[in-house]
């Protein structure tokens, strides 16, 4: 799968991608889905729900276990990827373009909240 440019990654393996219109896309990194293995279930929040940075906003289940997904920055859910809910296995193919999870509008100080997120290259390096 292609890694999009300009994403930031959290240490708990979520990515944040700036859409350039004061909205951001949030999902799981390729490393996260590879570690999870076959993804079989996804639970996403309702549109309009608001979460603080670090809150659990979604759950992903592989064959083996359920894992929580955390907000990389504070935000309001403005769009949910329903096709990922319908066919969660698309996350294993591509967690960025097809298998993104939600789009958000930041509700906190986005600059400050991004401070502990890593550029993709640095994130990859940190994993090694």
């Amino acid at each position: 799968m292609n890694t999009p440019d300009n994403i930031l990654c959290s240490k708990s393996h979520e990515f944040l991608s700036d859409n350039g219109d004061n909205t951001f896309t949030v999902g799981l990194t390729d490393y996260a889905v590879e570690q999870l293995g076959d993804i079989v279930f996804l639970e996403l929040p309702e549109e309009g729900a608001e979460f603080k940075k670090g809150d659990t906003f979604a759950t992903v289940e592989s064959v083996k276990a359920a894992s929580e997904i955390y907000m990389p920055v504070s935000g309001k859910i403005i769009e949910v990827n329903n096709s990922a809910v319908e066919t969660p296995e698309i996350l294993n193919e591509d967690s960025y373009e097809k298998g993104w999870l939600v789009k958000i509008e930041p509700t906190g100080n986005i600059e400050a909240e991004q401070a502990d997120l890593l550029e993709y290259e640095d994130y990859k390096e940190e994993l090694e």
Partner: protein
Amino acid sequence: MTKETFLHDKHIALGAKMVDFAGWEMPVQYTSIIEEHKNVRENVGLFDVSHMGEVFVSGKDSIEFLNKIVPQDISKLNYEKAVYCQLTNKNGGLIDDLIIYKLGILEYLVICNASRIDEDLNWMVRNSKGFDVKIDNQSHNYSLLAVQGPKADALMRKLGLTTQQESFTIKPDKIAGIKVLVSRTGYTGEDGYEILVENKNSEYLWDKILEEGKDFGIKPIGLGARDTLRLEAALHLYGNDLDENTTPVEAGLSWSIPKDKKDYYNGKEIIEGQLQHGGKKKLIGLKMLDRSIARHEYEVYKDGQKIGIITSGAPSPTLGENIALAYVNNDKEICTGTIVQVMIREKLHDAEIVKRPFIQKRNRVKL
């Protein structure tokens, strides 16, 4: 420090994802749990289960000794036959579940779970007082490979297996030129074999089985698929579905306990009482009625009351449904067809009680 089997390097070379299981670094998957699972149901799979324990029991009082530690009647076990057993404590609770094989006159092999080998040995030695018996833990000297699936028999023939075996038998044989003990047993619900081989030959045999198995579509299978395969077959996993506070009767294992065994065994009075009147709880199978997945330790409800707890749960790759095992109160109203609820992330999800096993098992081979 985690332990490694003699096949550890093979798993790494095959790109397996390794996890800690009962203190052993074991392959959880090589490619995909679902793919590996389906390959065992459709073709054949090779498992490294060398973490399991092998204890040889021999001596003049072997039968009396084994009869004291399990509810099964070892005096009725014939030469080269195997029997599924439980190691029970004085309250009838399960210290482990085992397979006991009769290898010779007054010579038995006990296969136990990796996570329980220390407890088992301690209990066996403690109970051997007054018996003329030798308890010999050989776990560190043997590797155990499992070849499972509808094409397992054909593959074993190609590898040179000479003897014809029924299910639940064990025979010394030679495959790929290596001396082994071969039993027609497994933990998948499919036909298949388990091969006990000396450590020094295990890598050679592993490679040979994968090589000769190519024509049969063989794949190496990790513990992830082993777990979903055994769950579909409703085979218990110690630590999830069995523990020291659960009796064989409660675990749905009454079928394995003879009603007429004369000898005393640990927990006999409790187990015999439960065979007549039932235990405090009972094991049931569940099918989720939505897409949610019940997992170990989730609570089970009926009419708003907590009635039990999930012990194992996962998606079933064969059925395309999510299944689980649970203990519930031993109540006649809670039976096959009853709709119950499972608490998942603070919401109740409907599930139906269904018959176990969840799939048709195909592991009973008669000659």
